[in-house]
């Protein structure tokens, strides 16, 4: 009976450094997001995550990878890059790039050199295939016999047809390497008993095709509520030697600012995001408590970290009212 993988979302509550050198920051998902992740794991469907920029879409996947492989990662038995695969989609991306790339140049070079010097042999066809993140992930599910984690980041950046080119790969977990003639090696697939767990993020810049959406679960990450915001900031700045009450105070003030922005701005317009807040706190908390309180008694200090256009600066006093 296979063990059931579950994600509690409670394992990454402080900064961590893995033996391989990777630094991980705290990630605190809310309950419904946790449920969404677990459902995606059980049903074997990709999880499509949308939300404002800076809300933590991209960081979710690595936090899941960490939790599922926590023991082995902390023990140094495996590296993060063995179980977690990131594919950052660009506007020029083609679906095949995530699977593999055939190194024509190297092959041509070998062919030419081989003609000059017969001692220089050509490699077998398959070795000119350089696998991309998705291709590697499929391979690893066989090598490790575990469900690895894949992130396809900002899928809406690419052509509108791009998601449709991945349908077969996501559904059946198979792909074909066209350049290889050996039928045994052409067809590549993931370990169907241990399929990879796929996370897909989108900034909602373009509409995604319905055929693709059907195959995904969908979750929208909202800006955290006040108490959640406080927990997030406390978790991030535990080592800063600042009092928790001060951090809670910061959270409350920022939350007021955010609410005001939500009320006065259009839905599509940019408002302060979670990641900007964390950056802002990072700078602010370098001062001592007295200085911080002094800074907060007027307009928001370091406003340039929070507000990215001129009109938004009018919100720098919002935390003082009411």
């Amino acid at each position: 009976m296979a063990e059931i993988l579950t994600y509690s979302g409670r394992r990454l509550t402080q900064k961590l450094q893995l033996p391989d050198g990777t630094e991980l920051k705290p990630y605190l998902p809310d309950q419904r997001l946790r449920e969404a992740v677990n459902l995606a794991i059980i049903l074997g469907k990709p999880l499509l995550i949308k939300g404002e920029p800076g809300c933590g879409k991209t960081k979710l996947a690595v936090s899941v990878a960490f939790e599922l492989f926590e023991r082995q990662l902390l023990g140094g038995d495996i590296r993060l890059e063995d179980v977690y695969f990131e594919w950052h989609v660009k506007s020029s991306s083609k679906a095949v790039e995530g699977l593999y790339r055939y190194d024509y140049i190297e092959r041509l070079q070998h062919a030419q050199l081989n003609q000059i010097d017969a001692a220089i042999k050509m490699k077998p066809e398959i070795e000119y295939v350089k696998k991309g993140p998705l291709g590697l992930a499929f391979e690893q599910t066989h090598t490790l016999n575990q469900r690895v984690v894949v992130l396809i980041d900002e899928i809406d950046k690419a052509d509108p047809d791009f998601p449709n080119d991945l349908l077969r790969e996501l559904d059946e977990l198979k792909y074909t390497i066209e350049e290889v003639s050996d039928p045994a090696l052409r067809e590549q697939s993931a370990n169907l008993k241990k399929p990879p767990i796929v996370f897909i993020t989108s900034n909602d810049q373009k509409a995604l095709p319905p055929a693709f959406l059907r195959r995904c679960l969908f979750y929208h990450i909202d800006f955290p509520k006040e108490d959640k915001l406080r927990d997030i900031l406390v978790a991030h700045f535990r080592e800063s030697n600042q009092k928790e009450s001060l951090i809670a105070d910061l959270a409350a003030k920022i939350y007021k600012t955010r609410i005001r922005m939500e009320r006065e701005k259009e839905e599509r317009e940019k408002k302060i995001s979670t990641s900007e807040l964390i950056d802002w706190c990072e700078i602010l908390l370098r001062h001592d408590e007295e200085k911080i309180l002094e800074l907060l008694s007027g307009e928001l200090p370091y406003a340039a970290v929070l507000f990215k256009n001129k009109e938004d600066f009018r919100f720098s006093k919002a935390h003082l009212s009411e």
Partner: protein
Amino acid sequence: MKTSDHNESYLYAFFCKLQSNGFGLGIEEYKLLLQALREGGEVRNKKDLKSLCKLLWLKSEMDEPIFNNQFKLSFAALPFELTPKTIKKETGDDPDAKISADESEPLNPELERKSQRKPSEQKVKNQSDKPTSSEELQTNSPASAVRMELDNFAERAQDYEEEGLKFFMLEKNMLPLAPQNLHAAWRRFNVGYGSALTKQIDIPLTIRNIGRRGFFMQAEYRRKKNRNQLLALIDRDGSMIAFHEFAETLLESARSVLSRNRVERYYFRNAPSGRFVFKDIFQLKTYPVDQMLAHNTGTDTVLLIISDGGAARGRFDTSRIEQTTAFLKKARQGISRMVWVNPMPRKRWRRTSAGVIARYIDMYEASEEEFGLAIRQLKR
């Protein structure tokens, strides 16, 4: 599992409602939800059930209000706390469990009425569904079909009233051309030409390849791309008031599928005059027509006009016709492909200005099929 059990399942009723509202859900999605209910986390109350359904069946923020509304209506009779027995009944694991009046715990006679009415409310799409025990449906006779529709409508209207809605909100999804259809049509417009190549050599790419390979192998040609600019001209006068929402929805859809800077919009009143159009919906900022046309020609611009052309009020107005045709003649000098979308149905164009205008420009009504043809004509 007897089909009649499905008919009585709230979940199935909800699923059908979503389907008829244009959510592209298939039987696979329904089965997926049942699987999630069986294997997944706890569903203790309606809120949990709603999040679960959202996770699996909601694919876009746009559809959320309709989803929420339908959920509220479909599950109104269910108690807040869901017992395992209710869940079992929904997933069909217990085929003998039938929904009884006690289980739905009517808090008051009104709810009881609702719980008995619900099964008849679903749209019976496929013929194999058996009718519920409360109603004998004779769909052979048109009179009874009409009666059933009227009953459905009356029930729905009563629902709205009971929900406290004093007026009817026309939502985007109720239009014959819903945002989903519009998106699909614009996507088809935008679709590239595959790997088709133009006859122009892409010089930078060729040079880059020479550098990469170390020698010249072949010239690279430019990929054929759809770079069309869309020029939209919208009639925003009195007779078009009912269609403002529709025109804006159509435009928003174009702007989200093609990028924003490929769509330009202008407004006019009644007829596009030969001199000015307006840049804003309140029609205060004028813009010279000549400039609008000059600005857009030469870059493969296509023109889309949205107007009733007099068909909404059934008017036949020679001056309107003349103005419009004069404008069209001018536009045709620079723009090769143009279509006219009329929100009024085709049979209403006869004997109105629109009927005459339709002889000078290809006019399409605002149905899914015809809009698709319009788009196909704009693209080449």
